[in-house]
């Protein structure tokens, strides 16, 4: 599987992501600079976490207008698998590739900790490594992860099986407390209509190494490799 990671000025989780991909695929992904005009051939395109352009405007708003985004949009439309994590998810929504927006967390504070996710739909290339309804533990690290969209869009996501993950408790139950950032319907990650694009706020790439305490994120990458081979 050939993975390409798009680097924006201010990306800062590209190393974590490349390490996770290398751990699963056995080789380093290709890194592409945001000012490049086009992407190389790829089986998977990833937008990593960070603070593109410092996120001084809205998160992801500047990066969505980087030169490379023209080709990113085209590839997404062509159905090339695409993964946006944290800031990458914010950029995908700002670029209109995924619906909705990420508002500041309900606490108005940056939050870095392990949370639990419920896998809502495992019939996709991204989630096929999990059981439907499975609970996994992965970290979050963001200030603006409070997913929002208009009610029609939310209904469409729900009805179409386009909700990928929801924040939940350790037992898989939904609650106000488990939905720590206040996301609409506890949504932590969504697919596009063709389920070839996944955007999520949590960091599965930081849960792929037993030395660091959790390997629950590994199945996402391993599942992708399996599905794309």
């Amino acid at each position, binding site marked *: 599987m050939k993975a390409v990671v798009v680097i924006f*000025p*201010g990306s*800062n*989780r590209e*190393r*974590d992501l490349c*390490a*996770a991909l*290398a*751990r699963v695929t056995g080789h380093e992904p290709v890194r592409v*600079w945001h000012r490049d005009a086009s992407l190389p051939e790829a089986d998977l395109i990833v937008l990593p*976490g*960070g*603070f593109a*352009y*410092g*996120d*001084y405007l809205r998160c992801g708003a500047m990066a969505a207008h980087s030169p490379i985004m023209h080709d990113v949009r085209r590839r997404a439309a062509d159905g090339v698998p695409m993964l946006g994590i944290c800031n990458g998810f914010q950029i995908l929504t700002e670029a209109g590739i995924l619906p909705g927006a990420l508002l500041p967390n309900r606490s108005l*504070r*940056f*939050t*870095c*900790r392990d949370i639990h996710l419920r896998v809502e739909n495992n019939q996709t290339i991204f989630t096929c490594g999990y059981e439907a309804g499975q609970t996994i533990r992965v*970290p979050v*690290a963001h*200030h603006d992860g409070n997913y929002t969209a208009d009610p029609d869009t939310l209904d469409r996501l729900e009805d179409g099986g386009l909700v990928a993950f929801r924040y939940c408790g350790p037992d898989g139950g939904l609650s106000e407390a488990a939905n720590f950032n206040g996301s609409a319907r506890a949504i932590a990650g969504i697919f596009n209509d063709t389920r070839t694009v996944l955007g999520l706020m949590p*960091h599965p*790439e*930081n849960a792929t*190494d037993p*030395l*660091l*305490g959790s390997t629950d994120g590994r199945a996402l990458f391993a599942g992708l490799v399996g599905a794309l081979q």
Partner: protein
Amino acid sequence: MTGGSNVTPALAAELGLTGEEFERAVAILGRTPNLTELGIFSAMWSEHCSYKSSKIWLKTLPTTGPRVICGPGENAGVVDIGDGDAVVFKIESHNHPSFIEPYQGAATGVGGILRDVFTMGARPIAILDSLRFGSPDHPRTRHLVSGVVSGIGGYGNCVGVPTVGGECEFHPSYDGNILVNAMCVGLARADRIFYSAAAGPGNLVIYVGAKTGRDGIHGATMASAEFSADAGAKRPTVQVGDPFTEKLLIEACLELMEGDAIVAIQDMGAAGLTSSSVEMAGKGGLGIELDLDRVPVRETGMSAYEIMLSESQERMLMILRPGSERDARRIFEKWELDFAVIGRVTETGRLVLRMNGEIAAEIPVAPLVTAAPLYERPWRRRAPEPEVDPASLPERDPLDCLRRLLASATLASKRWIWEQYDHLVMGNTVRRPGADAAVVRVSAPGNTIFKALALATDCTPRYCRADPVRGGAQAVAESWRNLTAAGAEPLALTDNMNFGNPERPEIMGEFVGAIEGMREACVALAYPVVSGNVSLYNETNGSAILPTPVIGGVGLIVDARGAVDLALKHDGDALILIGETCGHLGCTLYLREIEGSEAGPPPMVDLTAERRNGDLVRAEIRAGHITACHDLSDGGLLAAIAEMAIAGGRGLVLDPFSGALPRNAFLFGEDQARYVVETAVPDAVLGAARAAGVPARVIGVVGGGALTLTGAGAISVDALKAANEAWLPGYMAQA
């Protein structure tokens, strides 16, 4: 060139120079300095830049060792960690700016210490923050906590360097002077370290990074004076941080450092362009000429004085090898950073500044650096505190006392703080905040080597106030112990000396005493000082902070898979207390929080016992005999055991034998050189302890959902956790 007609001793005094220092500047120049030159003397001879009150004492600290590559004097210390790797680290204060404008003050403190580390060629891999605030009841404390924590997070999270540890305490002595000390740790190749000494007359001097504005002018001078009631009026001297530019600067500098273009490099920290250019020239024994018209500025009409003394952030000065300018420029332009040739190295030994076709300043460099004033200020030792007899204190329910201690501001969980820091980015955080030491892997992910660093910051200021010598030794010993408790070999430390006004003999006595204690401990533990920072004048209206020599320690873990933490792991394991318990209650947290007294001397620090006990614990961890380990400090044995239970979500039955000691002296005394370890093989651990001559005995067994104290009842681990975790979020939620 003519002297400034309006430069007078009175103006010099306003800029912080004494009459004698002003005369010395006049003698060096052979004329009255102009305003720009006066500003340069004032900044370079400020306490912050010159260490004029502290230098003769700092020199007495041990700074060498078999692993030390570079000790104090450069931007950061460098220590060999094998396999061609080096760890580069330093701690630095941003106390005064953080009190005036907490968000920007703390943020730029992080930015500054990051630059100190990547200037040396190291990629920053971890940040730690040692914070001290005033009483929780003080009207400004909540605002300061909130601002400082979001400032640190705002900067560190954005640059993508994990904030993995630190400490946070509250005490009324910090009401008017909070402490914000930031430590950065970086990783470099041992044969690719970059230094700041200028070389090669004719070589170009390059300015890179952000543009220069009017922010932070004379910040170094501000940081060298006491506050009066109008501290808020100094807000314009606080700099504004831009972590996004810093991130670009890190990447651009490290990219350039892969080649051979750089002769010397220095970040523009306190006193900005002044101190960076003077230090580079001074260390190289050379001169430097700068054309200030070529300095990138973000405001119009800036004077030479303003350009030289601005403390705008995210800027670096470099000297490049001839012929490498074009490649260097390409890298910085890729990262959308300013890159300007602003001068050249000369053989004259003089700092010459040109602007608008005129010479704006001309000062001989050597006297500016080497003839900087040095003071051996008078000092006075404090009378020792009388001992506190534990038998004189009332008997109290130990579990009730424990619950109160865990909910005290000092021991309360700081989760509310460190969850606002990205402590996971870079994917190497093996042990997260909240333990004795953070553990960060340094080998590449996926590598079969599992090398890691243990990192911690420590100080017990109340000990330092009661007995500066013992307190200084204890701070070093506790740092060494915290690294040991993670299974690490302590390598070296960086110190942040936070004190009051050194012109007062009792404050200078605190400083001298702390250094003496630190020196004894560093020597006994083979734990040298490789970098550091001094912050004096932490006083408001004549009231000083507790003396606070913060120790930032770095230790090496050969195989991170064998590192331990403090969380209890398995029911049925034995708990062993390592070290001797004498029931020392003077100056303890128990005495302060339960009895409302700060009386008594701090506990004895027996450095021979420290070393022997720590070496045993480390060996037993490496032998795989130990499943959890915690050093004993604030709150003594019972607080440590409770923290282990909370971290593991698991109870225990404690059956300590207190002998002739009053029970609470045994449970809450703060005798040093002690650890609690959890083990499945108690006989092996006890045997090793016996062989090493280390006092050790089984005091309990892991299991159940409560902390049960034989003869005194039980308290559930959930209740302990609730008491420990509720305080800080509750406090911060109050309007």
